[in-house]
């Protein structure tokens, strides 16, 4: 439960304060959480590669398409439609800022998505909410099941002569995947019903009794709400723009306080 609360808190901080400093702090602490949870290198490698590609593409696209900013470093010739115009340092910096926010969001979400199997989500909830957890975990489990079903159906259809020729051909894969998902969810519901789900108070093989450390961590995460609220009430600028010339991001304690609280919470919460 503590990890779930932490992840939700981190997402809230990134979305409420998309400032580069705050995003950087959240990204770093998210990766500390991933490493603390001993996530294997094999699982992390595609995430790192994906984030690096995304960051590079974001900077490149913004740098080439946005012609604002005072520091011109080159020109796209006028005979190239849509992108012609000056290339500025500020354009790249804005692309980097957007990328930082996206990387922070994905890194924060990864602390839950990579660390925890959706079917184990039930274990994250306290006993009183275990029924909600079990239902949510089962529902989320349909996503990987759909991915597996997509692969199986594509393989089976290819042997029957299907070829991926354009978007129209994909209908022969996507519709069966969706129909299969409906069928599977019906069978899942039937199985849960037959196994007494909802018949009364549940117990748990692995009970999540809240510990002092995890409770303290959850409280620290909840406290992030105060500086976030204060930032918005005090109209502290949380959106950083490098135009027309780059400036320093806001150094107001209200901007970086939520990230610091997340850091402390990450250190307090048990590694699991």
């Amino acid at each position, binding site marked *: 439960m503590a990890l779930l609360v932490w992840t939700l808190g981190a997402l809230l901080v990134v979305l409420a304060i998309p400032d580069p400093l705050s995003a950087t702090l959240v990204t770093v602490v998210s990766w500390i959480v991933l490493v603390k949870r001993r996530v294997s290198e094999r699982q992390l490698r595609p995430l790192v590669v994906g984030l690096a590609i995304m960051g590079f593409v974001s900077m490149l696209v913004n740098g080439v398409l946005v012609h604002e900013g005072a520091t011109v470093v080159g020109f796209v010739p006028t005979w190239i439609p849509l992108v012609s115009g000056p290339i500025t340092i500020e354009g790249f910096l804005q692309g980097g800022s957007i990328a930082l926010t996206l990387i922070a969001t994905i890194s924060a979400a990864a602390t839950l998505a990579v660390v925890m*199997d959706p079917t184990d989500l039930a274990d994250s909830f306290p006993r009183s909410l275990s029924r909600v957890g079990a239902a949510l975990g089962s529902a989320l489990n349909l996503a990987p099941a759909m991915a597996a079903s997509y692969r199986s159906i594509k393989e089976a259809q290819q042997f029957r002569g299907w070829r991926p020729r354009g978007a129209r051909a994909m209908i022969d894969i996507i519709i069966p995947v969706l129909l*299969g998902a409906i069928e599977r969810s019906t069978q899942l519901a039937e199985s849960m019903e*037959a196994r007494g789900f*909802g018949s009364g108070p549940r117990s748990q*093989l692995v009970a999540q009794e809240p510990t002092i450390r995890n409770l303290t961590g959850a409280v620290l995460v909840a406290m992030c709400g105060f500086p976030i609220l204060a930032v918005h009430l005090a109209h502290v600028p949380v959106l950083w723009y490098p135009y027309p010339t780059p400036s320093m991001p806001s150094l107001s304690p209200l901007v970086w306080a939520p990230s610091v609280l997340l850091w402390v919470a990450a250190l307090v919460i048990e590694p699991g």
Partner: protein
Amino acid sequence: MAQKIIFENVSYQYPAWGGEPAYALDRVSAELGYGITAVIGDSGSGKSTLLRLINGLIPHFHGGDFSGRVTVEGKEVVTTPTRELAKLVGFVFQEPENGFVRGTVAREVAFGPENLGFDRHKISAQVVASLQSVGILHLIDRRIRTLSGGERQRVAVAAALATDPATLVLDEPMSQLDENGARLLGQTLTAIAHSGTRVVLAEHRLAGYLQPDHIIGMHSGHLIEENSMKVVVPPPCLPPSTSTKLVWELHDAELSVGTTPLLTGINLAGREGEVTVITGANGGGKTTLLRAIGGLSPLTSGSRLAPDVGVAYLPQEPGVLLHRTRVIDEVAQTLKWLGLTSSPMDVLEILDLAHLAQRDPRDLSGGERQRAALAVVLAGQPRLALLDEPTRGMDEQARMSLVATLTHLAEHGTATIVATHDRVLAHQLAPRVWKISGGTLIPEEGVGP
């Protein structure tokens, strides 16, 4: 007085979604006492429907038109919700992989006892005991997605046993099990029946694995007189291929996942019209080998020869092939994709499936779905056919029909590879089969049922 399961003049129709309503059960009356009751009958005869009445999934979950009366341990099914009946009845589904709720074996088996509020120590003890009774305690910490089909089926049986039910209902629990698994399950069910749990199961593969105390025969939704298990073992009927033309080959093949070798030193080939049978324990690598021959799993080393086109592949789960509303439309789609002008009805007639042409695949029984999926993949008269557990859920008649189909294909030059744990089928198809053991192939002569 011992409680019983009593069916009194029960009739039932599934909801008819635009189709013609038909009775799945028609005026059925029966009493099930203690011991093992086997429900036998052809595919589509109403066995699964009868089983679902015992825990109230019919009519509570499926809806439809129900009449008559069913009582389980004195509780009337119509007025007792399924989730309440779950305290009395454990249920194992025909396709258990679609009903798994949790990620690991231990948590999946614990799910039922958790729902019924068992205390933590009892849940833990029940998980260990039920996994032990089906011989898979060593899998307790494994993720379910890493298990083979047979291993998953055993997890489902363990999960049903874990709630310590008064009645255990199993819908074709042996359909994916290897010989040892089926024998072990037979022994387990006999033991739990002796300990006082009533066992009711529908199964085509009982002979040799389990001796039921009572037999209920079913045909077209009616109960029929049946007092013995039929064991039909026809002699091997496929003549050896006389062709010298190689269709497929694996040479010094090795396949690993990461650093773990799954298959090593595989040398195997097949000629036109030749049927190759691969057997082995659940999780032994039969599917992996089949996928390697079909090019779905790349070899780590060695070489592979197989046709680029004209390869048919029947996966273990027939549902991935059946999405349209009529069986004939699925067959027509294969012919269209392959650019063939044959009539889909002719294909179904050759495979003795013309009677299923207009049926919706979702309304078919497990065995019928398997046969429909076979028709879909074999429609183009392939050069190479790869069939993964093709007799899953099939009755004796359907098995005979499958052998006839494979004979027809062999006569027309198709090389076929069948991965199966079904020794009767292996006996019918080939005098020599290949067994996967420890990642390598061992020839087995004179395989008999």
